[in-house]
């Protein structure tokens, strides 16, 4: 009997059943994908770290190294299974040139290394250690993937020619979050280039028992051995490797939670409507002695059928899409061995979705308990009083047209039902506005101030050349007599040693010059104004553990000097670790010079850029928009694409849900519709009432969604951007698109969906529907 009831019910409401099933399938697919990805990620990660023999504990160190003492420690400690010291030849990014492109703007510490003999191997894509021949260069996978270079291309490192021979998997530094990148060359080539950089040491240990890592870590730290640099353990390597794909999994999980929420909202809506419809029948069933669980069963079985079908479909779909998402894991880490386990976890994930739906339906059906059999049979409707809206009467309504009044009155009287639709529309508005605002913010010209660069029109970089200061002076002379340039400033970057409280030294890049001409965004404090002030980037302040007002000791012209931290600013260039000061210095080596200029007549920017490029071939002259596009273009366009797809997805959700709800409401309200038609309301009157209902709910939804987007959404986006070093983040909102076009787009789609969804209202026959 159940089967027939379900079949008839579904056939009667095909669109509704289908939409619900689509949402369930999407949710099941996403959850299954997330499960499959998690299992594959951990599996592939384990394989990679076993093949590469990743160290269990690594101490980075720069400065002198006492090998004998380290050897003695390693031999003495019972935990140590194996021990080695690897060299990492850290070179400035500008030393690496691939074609006409350098790594000067790379946020990574780039360096060379040779293949290890004992463990911590750099692997090829088959998972075996690479042996580099002379003249061969192996680069991290991400450099190939991001298009910085290609296999077979020529590379130039500090004047020496190489051929890019392949990609390497680095179990330590694969992730873009690891701040260093190792490139592999032959021993011979390495020795030849050793003069061009600073050697840092990787002091690495393999332990007999991995569970004793923290014990060993303490032992090493307290032994007073070399420790000028961070120490990293096996589990942290694992985390670093997992984090980018982990973030993708996180996003998928987040989206799946949203989709599950929407699916549950749809179910709640249809179920509440159905209960209202069947009120009398439920009462009769109760009256003739059926148990509540029996009555629930009839409804549960239908949703169990929809959920089961959706889950199976979603699981099947997850197999279609998993290859695409696993590509990254396969490339960076290799194949996972536990594919069957992945399928099992996928099934478990899908079962969880199924269970959640059943539990939810069961929860909604709890209200059966409250239905009084006598009341249901007598009145056929719930006698629960509609709260509020009592004062909102037709007889004293002056504001709205009668149709509009009826629409609004219905929403107010059936809040429980409409709150479901509202929730979905709030989510849609949020999904539309947040990515759009983020895109608008990072693509706006003023975003440059978060990048640690002032707002200018033209930027001139002088680096990798001799006599930089003379060349800069020569350019400045030309610029000062150029009437087209309304203002300019020179910033010279030099490296200084900073003395830390614990006695160690850190190298800090400091931009010297007048910082008041092109101010940047300070999250705290102000720009340095006097000789003994210094401003730090957010990331540097964090790393050096300094706050505004703290003092910092720098070695300037051979003497230690105390500077006061005047401010902390956003910077996402040069890895986010920079500083600004105004003092003069003649001793330290000049790393690069940046000249920023404002051109009075904006139409001349292009011609000025080419004029200066021709006149000063040693300098890189760029239009600031172009500069932004180069350093940030891929991120901006990725966010742009994401925001467009977010709009499409959100509109699709809004359309589907509105269609579903309207169709259902019309089916449910056919009695009221028949009554109104009998008393002379036209079909367009009825449609106007439904349009009012959805537009009313939509407007509330847009307002709430926009408020949420500008508070919660801004916080979320700010947290994301702060990871790159920008602080004090605020949305730059384009009011036209965020507050006019987007709402209009939503209203337009919801209107169309409402009109389509209520088109059946006109076909309702009075004579058939008016007799209950």
């Amino acid at each position: 009997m159940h089967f027939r009831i379900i079949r008839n019910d579904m056939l009667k409401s095909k669109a509704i059943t289908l939409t619900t099933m689509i949402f369930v399938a999407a949710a099941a697919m996403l959850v299954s994908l997330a499960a499959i990805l998690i299992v594959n990620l951990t599996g592939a990660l384990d394989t990679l770290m076993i093949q590469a023999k990743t160290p269990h504990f690594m101490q980075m160190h720069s400065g002198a190294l006492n090998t004998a003492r380290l050897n003695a420690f390693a031999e003495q400690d019972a935990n140590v299974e194996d021990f080695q010291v690897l060299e990492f030849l850290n070179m400035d990014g500008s030393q690496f040139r691939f074609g006409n492109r350098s790594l000067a703007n790379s946020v990574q510490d780039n360096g060379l290394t040779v293949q290890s003999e004992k463990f911590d191997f750099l692997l090829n894509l088959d998972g075996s250690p690479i042996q580099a021949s002379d003249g061969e260069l192996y680069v991290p996978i991400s450099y190939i993937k991001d298009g910085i270079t290609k296999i077979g291309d020529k590379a130039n490192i500090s004047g020496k020619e190489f051929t890019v021979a392949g990609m390497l998997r680095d179990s330590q530094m694969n992730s873009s979050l690891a701040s260093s990148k190792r490139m592999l060359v032959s021993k011979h080539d390495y020795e030849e280039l050793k003069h061009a950089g600073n050697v840092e040491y990787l002091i690495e240990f393999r332990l007999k028992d991995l569970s004793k890592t923290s014990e060993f870590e303490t032992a090493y730290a307290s032994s007073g051995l070399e420790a000028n640099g961070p120490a990293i353990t096996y589990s942290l390597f694992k985390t670093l490797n997992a984090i980018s794909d982990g973030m993708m999994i996180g996003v998928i999980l987040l989206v799946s939670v949203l989709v599950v929420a929407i699916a549950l909202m749809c179910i709640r809506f249809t179920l509440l409507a159905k209960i209202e419809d069947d009120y009398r029948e439920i009462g009769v069933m109760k009256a003739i002695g059926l148990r509540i669980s029996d009555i629930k069963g009839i409804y549960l079985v239908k949703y169990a059928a929809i959920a089961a079908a959706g889950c199976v479909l979603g699981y099947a779909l997850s197999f279609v899409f998993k290859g695409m998402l696993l590509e990254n894991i396969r490339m960076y880490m290799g194949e996972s061995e536990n594919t069957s386990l992945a399928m099992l976890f996928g099934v478990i994930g899908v079962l969880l979705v199924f269970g959640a739906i059943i539990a939810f339906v069961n929860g909604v059906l709890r209200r059966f308990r409250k239905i009084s059999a006598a009341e249901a049979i007598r009145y056929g409707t719930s006698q629960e009083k509609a709260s509020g809206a009592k004062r909102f009467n037709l007889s004293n309504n002056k504001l709205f047209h009668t149709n509009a009044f009826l629409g609004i009155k219905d929403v107010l009287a059936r809040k429980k039902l409409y709150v479901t639709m509202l929730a979905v529309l709030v989510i849609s508005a949020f999904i539309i506005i947040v990515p759009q605002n983020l895109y608008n913010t990072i693509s706006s010209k003023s975003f440059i101030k978060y990048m640690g660069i002032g707002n200018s029109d033209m930027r001139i970089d002088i680096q990798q050349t001799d006599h930089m200061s003379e060349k800069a002076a020569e350019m400045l002379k030309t610029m000062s007599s150029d009437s087209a340039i309304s203002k300019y400033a020179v910033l010279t970057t030099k490296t200084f040693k900073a003395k830390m409280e614990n006695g160690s030294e850190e190298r800090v890049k400091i931009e010297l010059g007048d910082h008041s001409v092109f101010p940047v965004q300070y999250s705290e404090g102000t720009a340095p104004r006097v000789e003994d002030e210094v401003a730090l980037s957010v990331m540097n302040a964090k790393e050096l553990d300094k706050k505004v007002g703290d003092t910092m000791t720098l070695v300037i012209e051979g003497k230690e000097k105390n500077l006061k931290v005047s401010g902390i600013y956003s910077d996402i260039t040069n890895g986010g670790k920079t500083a600004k000061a105004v003092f003069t210095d003649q001793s330290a080596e000049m790393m690069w010079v940046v000249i920023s200029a404002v051109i009075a007549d904006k139409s001349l920017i292009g011609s000025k850029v080419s004029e200066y490029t021709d006149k000063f071939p040693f300098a890189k002259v760029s239009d600031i928009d172009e500069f932004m596009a180069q350093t940030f273009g891929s991120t901006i366009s990725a966010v742009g694409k994401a925001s467009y797809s977010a709009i499409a997805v959100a509109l699709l959700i809004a359309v589907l849900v509105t269609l579903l709800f309207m169709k259902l409401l019309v089916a449910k309200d056919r009695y009221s519709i028949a009554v109104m038609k009998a008393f002379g309301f036209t079909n367009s009157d009825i449609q106007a009432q439904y349009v009012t209902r959805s537009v009313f709910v939509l407007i509330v939804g847009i307002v709430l969604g926009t408020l949420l987007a500008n508070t919660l959404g801004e916080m979320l986006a700010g947290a994301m951007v702060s990871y790159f070093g920008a602080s004090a983040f605020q949305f730059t909102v384009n009011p036209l698109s965020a507050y006019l076009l987007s709402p209009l787009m939503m209203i337009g789609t919801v209107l169309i969906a409402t009109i389509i969804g209520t088109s059946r209202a006109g076909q309702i026959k009075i004579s058939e529907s008016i007799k209950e």
Partner: protein
Amino acid sequence: MKKIIIGDQLVKSFGEGDEKRNVLDGVSVEINEGEFVAVMGPSGSGKSTLMFALSGTDGVNGGKVIMDNKNLAEIGENELSDIRRTKMGFVFQQPTMLKNLNILDNIILPSMRDNRKNAAQITEKARALMKRVGIAELEKRDITQVSGGQLQRAGICRALMNSPKIIFGDEPTGALNSKSAQEIMDIFSKINEAGTAVMLVTHDAKVAARTERIMFMRDGAIVSELSLPKFTGTDMDGRIEQITVKMREVGI
């Protein structure tokens, strides 16, 4: 006497092919201004279908319905709605009220569609009507807070709001006890005395006995008619007797 509605050779059928059967099988009816008419017949005889056809609420498969020189079968949906709203009133067996609105709002709803500007006048008129049928104190109540008889009176008020030419009643007392039914019939009589035509569909001889012309239907056709003098409050039993005799005569 002037005719308000003319139904000419009305045919209405349900079902397809072999299943097809005519619920109205060539019925012709005329209703005059100010007339008080009843249609009687057993279930399935087509009496409600005739009412839906004459009021333009449901289309017909053959014949025509003329009101104000217009064939209701040929005019558009919107014009039909306008005619129903301005020239006709309806009272159904079950009180057809919108759940979300209170009694007063339900009554003024059809009038408010066109004349929102005159809300004050419309409300005044509604209150006067409510007073007339004895439910003046119920205007703020929800429709679930009043009795069936009270709801039916509210329904009559709603039907009268636009001063229609004719009121259709489909078993208007069918769901009421005899005391309430009698009170409702008193109201219909008063409405009719004031000049509005009333057409009632019923199987209750006591209801039909209040009217002046009774049409008897069987199998989709009007098989007989009975004219009675104007009801003055006396001789109810005699009128009922006449009707039951006629019913036996035509076999219903």
